[in-house]
Structure formats: structure tokens, C-alpha cells
């Protein structure tokens, strides 16, 4: 009834694609250019720092691997939230959305802790090119995760106060797209920045 009306309205578009989903993909596409520029800056300056600490001095791969698994798991909980939303199971949907949000918070918390450890080890924004490029790149990513967490909590809030439309899977799907994108950016960052070793400057 109302579902059909909403579905009908969405698909009255010239392409049959809903406006919001098209907009989200366009936006994510532009974000590739954003993170690409930050990663490129990192790559340009990789190994060019004129004084320590260098990446191998501060990186704790085991620790960051845990963070990576946490963020990956949050993508799983996100799709489970979507599946629940599609089945109309509000309780499970909220549960999985909250799980995603908490995993995201754990990730960001882990980042913040990592930053403080690095800082104590002598790596500030201006210490060298590594500090500059590392903090800004991962900081940007962390801000994106934080915005995602706010959106997830917003969805939970809207659902609890019954403000979500009957076809509630759509907003969940949209937030999900954003969330997964933030995850795949991390997939790139984890490999390019953390795992590929940086040569020591001579």
C-alpha cells in the first residue's frame, strides 16, 4: 500500500533508478578522487622523511590488524542489518545497526589510541613527512567513519521513534553503501600504508 506508493514514486524516474541511490553512488565516486589525492600524497612522500620516527619505528601491525578485522566485521553486521530491514524485522535491524556503530566506535577508538601512542613516540603532525601524510590521511578516514557512526545511530533513533518509512530497508541500504565504502578505503590504506614496508631513507 504505502510501500507500493513509495516504490512507485521512486521508480517513476527516467532510468527507473531511485534518485537517492544514484546520488549516493555519484558521491562515492567523487570520494575516490578525495582519498586518492591523500593516498597519492602519502606515496609521493613515502620514504622521504628527513628525520625519525619512520613507519617501521612506530607501526604495530598486530594491533592494526585487529582494527582492520573490527572494521571488516562491521561491514558484515551492516549487511545483516540490511537483511533484517528487508525482512521487516525492526528489532534485529536495530541490533545489527548498533553492532555496526559500536564496531565503528571501537575502530575509531583504536585509531585515537594508536595516534596517542605514536605521538608519545615522537611522531607529531609536523615532525616529518610521515607524520604529516599519515595523520591527515588516516584522520580523514577516521572522520568519515565517525560521520558514518552518527548516521547509523541516527537510523536507530529514527527507527525507535517510528520515523522510518515502511520501506525502511532503503535508508539502511544507503547508509550501508557509505559504510562499506569507508571500509574499502581502509582496505587500501591498510595495505598501502601499513603492510607495504617503507624503505629507510639513506
Amino acid at each position, binding site marked *: *500500500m*504505502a*510501500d507500493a506508493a513509495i516504490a512507485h514514486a521512486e521508480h517513476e524516474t527516467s*532510468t*527507473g*533508478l531511485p534518485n537517492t541511490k*544514484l546520488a549516493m*553512488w*555519484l558521491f*562515492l*565516486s*567523487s*570520494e*575516490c*578522487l578525495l*582519498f*586518492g*589525492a591523500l593516498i*597519492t600524497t602519502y*606515496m*609521493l612522500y*613515502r*620514504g622521504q622523511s628527513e628525520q625519525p620516527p619512520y613507519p617501521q619505528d612506530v607501526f604495530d*601491525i*598486530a594491533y592494526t*590488524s585487529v582494527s*582492520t*578485522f573490527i572494521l*571488516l566485521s562491521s*561491514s*558484515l553486521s*551492516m*549487511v*545483516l542489518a*540490511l*537483511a533484517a530491514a*528487508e*525482512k*521487516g524485522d*525492526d528489532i534485529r535491524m536495530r541490533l545489527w545497526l548498533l553492532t555496526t556503530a559500536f564496531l565503528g566506535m571501537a575502530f575509531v577508538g583504536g585509531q585515537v589510541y594508536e595516534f596517542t601512542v605514536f605521538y608519545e613516540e615522537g611522531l607529531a603532525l609536523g615532525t616529518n613527512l610521515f607524520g604529516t601524510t599519515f595523520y591527515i590521511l588516516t584522520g580523514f578516514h577516521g572522520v568519515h567513519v565517525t560521520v558514518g557512526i552518527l548516521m547509523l545511530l541516527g537510523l536507530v533513533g529514527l527507527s525507535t521513534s*517510528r*520515523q522510518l*518509512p*515502511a520501506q525502511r530497508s532503503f535508508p539502511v*541500504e544507503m547508509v*550501508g*553503501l557509505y559504510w*562499506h*565504502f569507508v*571500509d*574499502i578505503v581502509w*582496505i*587500501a590504506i*591498510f*595495505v*598501502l600504508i601499513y*603492510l*607495504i*614496508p617503507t*624503505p629507510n631513507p639513506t
Partner: protein
Amino acid sequence: MAEPEVREQTAEHAPEHRAPAAHQGGPTVRVYLRVAAILGVLTAVEVWLSYSGITGGLLITALILASITKFVMVLAYFMHLKYDDWRYGRFFLMGIVGATTLYMIVLITSKVFLR
């Protein structure tokens, strides 16, 4: 924020309104779990590679291949591109291919790969 005073409830719990999976024949929960497991394994492989003695071009190639696989799997399954209209993927491709091309030119021009 204004609290809604008058609310018209729509069917919030319609147990009979149960779509089998996502939109047009999307992945089931089982598929999601399988994808997640593969992603986890790939990540573990990446970490193992970094601790292994492998170095140089071999290490970089293996790591990049693993990460690209993860990248594509999240896009295809979690972000649904495999099941969705081709246009979404086309727009995203513009961004990712465009970014990679332009930035590789910048890095090549800056002689980064000759270091």
C-alpha cells in the same frame, strides 16, 4: 526538535511482507557470511605476508592482489553491485579508474617508481 503530535502509523511490522533476499535476487545471509569469511581469510593472508620473509616486488604484488580482491568483493556483494543496475557500477568505475589514472600519472611524473 518537534515531536510528532499526530502520527499516521503505517504497517511497521508486516510479517507477511518478507522479501526473500535483497532487491532483484540479491545475496542471502549465507552468501554474506561466506564473503565475510573470505575477506577475513584474505586479511589474515595479508598480515601473514607482512610477517613472512617475503620482500620486494613479490610482497607488494601479493599484497595488492589480495587487497584488490577484497575491494572488489565488498563492492560486488556487500555493496550489491553484482546484483544491481549496471549504471551504478559505471559511475563508480569512472571515479576509481579516473582517480587511479590521474594519480598514477602524477606519481610517474614525480619519478616515484624510479626510487
